């Protein structure tokens, strides 16, 4: 049985080419107080808009999912991308493989789930859908555009 950390069960997935941030992330309050950190962690229910004026100095934003059924982090991620954030956006906590397609579409580009994904399941989840009905934070073209050239 593969354990977390083994190659067969990587503990994280990352869809970026740049170097990962090397400083641990700080809480939103600490980030706003200190003005030095470049990695910040957002808990479910925190107001992400307070971060908007500082996005140009952020390299990593972690959005925590305390329970997989708590969907607030989806809005947090998409709002960050809509505000122009281009750094790493990482989903942490109770992240299930069945959610990662929608998470990618909301702008997440890395995942550090509490329980590692089976790579084959993750690959299947991310490649399953050829089409999407609606636009989100990614560049997939909605069906309503495809239909009309």
């Amino acid at each position: 049985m593969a354990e977390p950390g083994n190659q067969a069960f990587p503990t994280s997935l990352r869809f970026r080419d740049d170097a990962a941030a090397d400083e641990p992330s700080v809480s939103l309050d600490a980030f706003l107080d200190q003005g030095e950190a470049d990695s910040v962690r957002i808990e479910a229910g925190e107001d992400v808009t307070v971060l908007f004026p500082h996005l140009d100095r952020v390299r990593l934003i972690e959005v925590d999912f305390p329970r997989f059924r708590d969907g607030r982090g989806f809005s947090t991620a998409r709002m960050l991308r809509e505000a122009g954030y281009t750094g790493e956006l990482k989903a942490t906590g109770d992240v299930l493989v069945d959610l990662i397609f929608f998470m990618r579409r909301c702008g997440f580009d890395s995942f550090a789930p509490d329980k590692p994904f089976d790579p084959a399941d993750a690959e299947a989840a991310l490649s399953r859908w050829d089409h999407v009905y609606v636009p989100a934070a990614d560049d997939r073209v909605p069906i309503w555009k495809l239909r009309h050239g």
Partner: protein
Amino acid sequence: MYRYDKYDQAMVDTRVEEFRDQVRRRLEGKLDDDQFKPLRLKNGLYLQLHAYMLRVAIPYGTLNSAQMRALGAIARKYDRGYGHFTTRQNIQYNWIKLAEAPDLFADLAKVEMHAIQTSGESIRNISSDQYAGAAADELIDPRPWCEMLRQMTTFMPEFSYLPRKFKIAVIASAEDRAALRWHDFALRIVQNASGEIGFEVYAGGGMGRTPFIAYRIREFLPTSQLFSYLQAVLRVWNRHARRDNIHKQRMKILVHDLGQEEFTRQVEEAFEHFLSLAEDFPQAEYDRIAAYFAPPPFEQGLSDEIDLSDPAFAAWVDRQVIAHKAPGYAIANISLKPVGGIPGDISADQMDVVADLAERYSFDELRATHAQNLVLPHVRKADLHAVWQALVEAGLADANLDLVSDIIACPGLDYCSLANARSIPVAQKIAERFADPARQADVGELKIKISGCINACGHHHAGNIGILGVDRKGSESYQLLLGGSGDEVTTQAKIAGPGFDEDGIVDAVERAVEQYRTIREPGERFIDTYRRVGMDGFKEAIYG
């Protein structure tokens, strides 16, 4: 009606394979029950008292004969030969095996159907006017907008895990046949002073244990901005709803807590933002969908005469047939409320009969209603007698539309793991008490709605007479409510007084009905009399 193109078909086919994979991982132990539960719920599978219940979506209540036959075939192949039409114009099966569900979904996909987002914390099947496209009083057919909403609300990434369920209704007439203001989000299609079509928007309605009637939050929304506006509403709710108590997470609670004005302000602010993203659908997409809902080729020059010399047929026409917008045509309602039957239940053989009738006499179209009945929307008046005869043979010719025996009831404790009390036997006993057609006709329009627990699936809050089953010290007890309505004058029913046992509630309903007959003024329906005299006019008659 709408037909899938290659994209729609690919979406439902892929969904079947996704769910097949999820079931496999569940059976292999890769998904635990907690993780699997929301996945199956988003595919319409509930675990009930005895087996899995499956809710299949009938988008805005419209289906064709091939779909109805497929629903019958599914009832035979995967269930016990029957199905149950619900208050959201869907159909439910009560005896489904999990391992067979992926194959069942594949069968549905072959006739352009699915069970996507019919339960769980998702945007549910859009409901609409069952007479859409046929009603004389509609501004336009609301169904193209329903289909537009169906597609835009299927798999919205940001709203994958909403705080709770989210129910949408769309109508296009002044008369409300869809209980608009009992929905989380509702649109009435209207025309403004410059002649443009748009939406009057309502938000924050819902039944359940904390009922609220929706507020109007916008007088006029241009149709081209619907996607932006809907996203704004959903984002405000998704971000700010409580997440600590499942009973306080519906949008109605947030709207109530923030107040209509503040909620509206936040929505408008988010709406401005979404408009700036310029992601709304192209007009060509609405035009493409609307073309599917062009009126069927009605024959011209048909007579409006109906031969009513057969009194039984005449009684059925009088009760079940509604005026159609096209001369020579009629809307025929099919009752799924035989006295002594289970409200909304239909056998596979009856589904076949109804499918045949739709194919032969109604341009291949059928509707399911939120009152758990069916409709043949476009029948030539000259064909009504043949339709009626076929319904008589199939046991579907009851003439009780909107009468005291046309009862909405949830499955209750006979099936449901949430229920506190049985609903079906109460509905059956009331229907039997008023079985005499002459007595029902004399009482006139009276909408009785029965829920087996406070979750209110039987819509008791909206009943002219509502009945709520509760658990009282270990035994089933029933509260009586009066004065609710889901029509354009939406009102919430009020509790009349102390509860009753199963036989007692039937007697109490009869006393309320007799009091109405005693004090009604000419032309008054039950709800009119209640609105005139209030609870005080009924209380003594009920409790003595």
